[in-house]
């Protein structure tokens, strides 16, 4: 403090009064946009009284990239490169609802094999996203080791994704009416075209067995840890009613006890052919959100193992015109992404690109419950709650 005191104006000691009651004032604590555990550039303006939070106001928009507007000046096949980057932890899964929406407007029947490939890769994206969660969540509440184990196992899944699509995070692999063949495979409507790399089935089987093993390890190492349980159980409880009112979706909603999974409800991919369960939580606390995601990894691995068992043969691309124009109309297609429900509202005026594209992302709706959940929480719980919501800032701001 560099202020100088005027000797003539000094307060006289005898005049100073001491109030018996100590007046306390809430301190405004700016958490973020640059903060280690806000997953990027989320800013929380918190009013804190000691360690206790009295109110929180999330401030968004630091990562707004204008994808909805950008999509208006791009053709349909070009939009997938954009939507890959919305939730970058599971880039592949973002493409699916958009492509499915465009196909719905064009009334294209997608070949079964292409649908299976999409399904396998979507589930791989889910597994890799939940691996990141299993590393990052314990990291935020202070356990530094699980992230290394999670990254090591995630790498196997990403290697598989890369071997098929050529990209680890931004595959840009879906085409309207099908998927991309391997490089130099020739015309895509041919009967038996090479689409998956050699040894893919075997490698997938090995990798999925490893994933199943990793899930067991996590349930022991993270879920069985007493300190982890003390930090997450009965912390950040989200009731069924509040979750439904705020449009929360995905594992967070299921952890609160609502059995809602678009993979069972919707038909954007042939999930009805597989046998899998939807993990449901009981209390809706941070621990349940962790355990729902971890059990989901196991179910995803089971789906992939089933899918490669009865993979149909055939073409991977439906017949589409050279220049893709989507007929006039509008549609909304939603899908169960790793973070929750993701939907695209496409309005087409019959042009080369969408007239208007509205993107509904899971993380944006999911963090809308932050002010409610954080009211009255302790500061360390803020970190645990934010970590358990598993949001990605690209998915919030897009």
């Amino acid at each position, binding site marked *: *403090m560099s202020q100088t005191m005027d000797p003539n104006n000094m307060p006289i000691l005898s005049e100073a009064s001491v109030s018996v009651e100590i007046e306390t004032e809430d301190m405004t*604590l700016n958490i973020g946009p640059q903060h280690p555990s806000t997953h990027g550039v989320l800013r929380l303006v918190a009013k804190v009284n000691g360690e206790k939070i009295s109110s929180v106001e999330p401030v968004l928009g630091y990562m707004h990239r204008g994808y909805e507007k950008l999509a208006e000046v791009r053709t349909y096949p070009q939009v997938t490169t954009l939507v890959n980057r919305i939730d970058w932890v599971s880039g592949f899964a973002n493409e699916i609802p958009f492509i499915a929406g465009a196909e719905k407007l064009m009334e294209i029947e997608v070949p079964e094999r292409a649908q299976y490939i999409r399904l396998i890769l979507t589930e791989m994206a889910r597994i890799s996203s939940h691996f990141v969660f299993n590393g990052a969540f*314990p990291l935020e509440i202070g356990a530094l080791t699980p992230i290394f184990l999670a990254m090591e196992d995630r790498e196997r899944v990403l290697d598989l994704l890369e071997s098929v699509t050529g990209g680890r995070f931004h595959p840009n692999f879906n085409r309207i009416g099908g998927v991309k063949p391997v490089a130099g495979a020739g015309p895509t409507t041919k009967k038996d075209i090479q689409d998956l790399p050699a040894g893919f089935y075997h490698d997938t089987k090995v990798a999925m067995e490893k994933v199943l093993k990793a899930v067991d390890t996590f349930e022991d190492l993270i879920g069985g*840890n007493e300190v982890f349980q*003390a930090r997450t159980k009965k912390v950040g409880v989200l009731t069924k009613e509040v979750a439904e009112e705020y449009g929360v979706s995905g594992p967070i909603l299921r952890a609160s006890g609502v059995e809602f999974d678009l993979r069972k409800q919707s038909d954007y991919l042939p999930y009805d052919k597989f046998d899998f369960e939807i993990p449901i939580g009981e209390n809706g606390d941070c621990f349940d959100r962790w355990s729902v995601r971890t059990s989901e990894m196991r179910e995803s691995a089971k789906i992939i193992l089933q899918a490669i068992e009865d993979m149909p043969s055939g073409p991977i691309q439906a017949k589409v015109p050279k220049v893709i124009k989507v007929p006039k109309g509008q549609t909304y297609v939603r899908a169960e992404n790793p973070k929750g429900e993701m939907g695209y509202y496409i309005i087409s005026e019959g042009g080369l690109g969408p007239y208007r594209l509205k993107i509904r992302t899971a993380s944006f709706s999911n963090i809308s419950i932050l002010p409610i959940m954080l009211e009255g929480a*302790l500061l360390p719980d803020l970190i645990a709650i934010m970590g358990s919501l598993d949001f990605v800032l690209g998915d919030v701001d897009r």
Partner: protein
Amino acid sequence: MSFSSELLIKVLVVLATAPVMALGLTLLEVKGSAWMQRRPGPLHVGLRGFIFPLATAAKYFQKETIIPKDVDEPVFKWAPAWVIAAVVGLFTIIPLSPTLVVRDLELGVFFLLAISSISTIGVLTAGWSSANKFSLMGGLRAAGQLIAYELPLILSVVGVVIQAETMSTVGIVEKQIEFGFPFVIAGQGIAFIIFMIAATAEMMRTPFDMPIGESELTMGFMTEYSGIRFLIFYISEYINLFVMCAIASTLFLGGYHIPLLPTEWVNFYGPLVLIGKTFILAFLLIAVRWSFPRFREDQLQTLAWKVLIPVSLLNIMVTAIMKVVF
């Protein structure tokens, strides 16, 4: 040898030993954590990464010291000195052999408890003077934590003092030699566990690292520090680890003594034995650090006041009764 020249030599030896031990423990930490996390750890600096800690320390010397505009400058600048003075001061009472000790104080254990609380002042002033809300919260958390864990630390040592009938650290080791067993086996096992838990909290290591809590408070009271002052905080953390583990092995594990070795050679093997025991204990704490998440502030206080303090009081009672009976 005159008193002043003897003092000078002792001070120089301590000032040379403390950073070397801290660097050794840093190496143990980076290599140990890498081993636990299936990583290779540092590999390229020096022989298989073995001078990595030295390179890290040297790096901080060339970093710019940034002092933010609004900090209370003299307090901010002196805060690291309090912390390192407290931990280096504790070297005074660590006996490497019956004669190799800076000063065998009669009230050695008392000295330990008195000096180790000085670092609270450094941590609190660092948090207060930084003009940063995260630092302030870190500083206050640290103060609350250090005060709460001072008590179990003291109370767990009281059992040892009762059993050894002396407060001198050399005397406690000699008593254990006379006894035939280290105190950790002979009656003070619970006290040892409490001491290690309380020491972990004193050192602010995971699972008790809320004052630093990098995912909550960025770096707690150290947030605004950079360059050489950050290095002082960093290195005093490891010196503290060494000192606390050395004291634990002195009080509970028989210190410089190891059975079956000729006692007349103790001046030669004593230091090695003590450092060996210290590093084994330190590795235990390192393994704990890399296995557990951190507690919440209120859980930490609950653990101290509702579990550790009652149990250590009970331990004192039992020890006293046994002492009277036998």
